């Protein structure tokens, strides 16, 4: 199989790899680069567990070819905490019991981050819509929605 070079920044650090053409970004991140925070739940773009942020936009890494990501900046949940300090979203998920098994959590946090980056003071409806591509089977959506709203409030308090 043809190998192609791919180069991008992942959570602020430069990555350069030769990968098999056709490899998904999800597999490249997990198997080649070793960032296993995006999870493979369905590998067909329906569960949202593999969500990552590419150049500020929410993307499903299982449907994104790694070779199309050259020159981009990619953020995953493992890169969110800075200097050991949790991101407000991570803090809120922790404090409001918004994780049970934890498998959907990294994808949920990515989806929520993109929402808060674009809409710092979302309504409940905004949160529901932003998380609508992410499936959770055990925590239940309500604690997750509350976590995102809590993080939004703590953000706006920080800004004030």
């Amino acid at each position, binding site marked *: 199989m043809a190998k192609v070079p791919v180069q991008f920044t992942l959570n602020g650090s430069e990555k350069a790899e030769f990968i098999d053409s056709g490899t998904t970004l999800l597999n490249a991140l997990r198997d080649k680069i070793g*960032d296993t925070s995006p999870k493979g739940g369905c590998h067909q773009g329906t569960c949202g567990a593999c969500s990552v942020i590419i150049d500020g936009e929410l993307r499903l890494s299982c449907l994104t070819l790694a070779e199309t990501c050259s020159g981009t900046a990619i953020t995953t949940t493992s890169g969110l905490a800075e200097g050991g300090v*949790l991101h407000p979203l991570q803090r809120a998920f922790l404090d409001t019991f918004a*994780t049970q098994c934890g498998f959907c*959590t990294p994808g949920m946090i990515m989806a929520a981050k993109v929402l808060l980056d674009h809409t710092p003071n979302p309504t409940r409806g905004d949160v529901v819509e932003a998380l609508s591509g992410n499936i959770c089977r055990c925590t239940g959506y309500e604690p997750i929605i509350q976590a995102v709203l809590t993080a939004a409030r703590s953000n706006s308090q920080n800004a004030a």
Partner: protein
Amino acid sequence: MELRKNYFADVRKDDLHEIGQPRPRSDSPGHVTGKTAFFADRNFPGMLHLKMVRSPHHHARIRSIDTSEAEKHPGVVKVLTAKDVPHNVYTILILIQVGPEDETVLADGKVRWKGEAVVAVLAETERAAQEAAAKVKVDYEVLPAVFDMEEALKPGAPLVNEYHGQNYYLYDSGECRKVRFGDVEAGFAGADHILEQSYQSSPIEHAPTETTGCVVAPEGNDRFTCYTNTQAMFFTLDNTSIILQMPGSKLHFVGGTVGGGFGGKVDVIVEPIAILGAKLTGRPVCFIYSREEEMQISSPRAAEKVVIKDGVMKDGRIVARKVTGYTDAGAYSRHSPYGAQKGAGHYPGPYTIPNVWIDTYCVYTNRTPSSAMRGFGVTIGDFALEVQMDKLARLIGMDPLEFRFINAYRDGDMKAHRQPTEGAALIECMQEASRAANWPVAEKYMAMSSYVKGA
């Protein structure tokens, strides 16, 4: 959440330090930072991928299996069939003496449901394993199949599972689990009204976000580490030990992190064959269900049929209950004999009924083997029982909630399986439900208590 301390005030313990106190989950910091290691987050150099060749038929005899083309496929390292499995016929609950062994790890001579594992292919890449699996040729002689429990129980129905010899599980109490309490026919004879209804359900898939699977790494000393998302670590370890005829000390299981399970990960399906693959190739092996497999192959909640006949008095007392329950095990037992048995214990409901007669059958059909799922064996029963309770209340023109107060069991009441009721709080729960749902009941019910002093 408000704690109502007026209930059971004289028996309540209020000096507990842990119970009733919120505590953070120890695993959530790993979840929110993406550091929690699920089984598939382990990646070993040289890891092989396992793909299963599955039966396209509900019921068929296997005339022959030809793996020669698959073995020649680039990247294929090993192809496994039934003859490679040391103890190929097993059943999970044999560990608690619930037999007979009735299920094959890899089909031997026959397939009994569509999706049954027939041949395992181990290859360098997932894609190679998939392509090679498509090249395995299995010659089937399709047999008549049975999909309906009542059809399966009729004389002359196709025999699903030879290890049982008939299409139902044979308990030590006979062809079904039985509860006999009082005289149910006398109860019906004295009842003001009789209502007989039947209820049925479809299978339900758990659909965990993380699919079922495991990663196995040989430790190099004939010992194997298996990273798995099983929900039943010791069932899995001990059954693997039996299937592979290896002492448990050679099997090192690492688990406890499960990306959703709901009972769907208690069966012993992926680990034995993956460990066998690692043993025979000397290489790490990954066997993970695709989403499609998870939805089609993993064991669902059993389909059930429940027939309930109740005798009730005009004043609201239920005086007799007769229940026949059927649990569709699919082609193999797995946890279903236990599920059907739980139903027998559960069908009296949380009610005090003086005359009870219950039979529950665990039936084999050529459908996907069903197994554990959240309260399996009792949840469908609860649905049926509570719909029946509403119908009974309507029949005698009584408020459905007040009707339940009249029949609710209280401390000291004898249950149908002759276990005296202890610590019942049903009356109190219904009182709170009445307030929460704004569904008022007469004052005399609000003054009742489940707690009977000295009971």
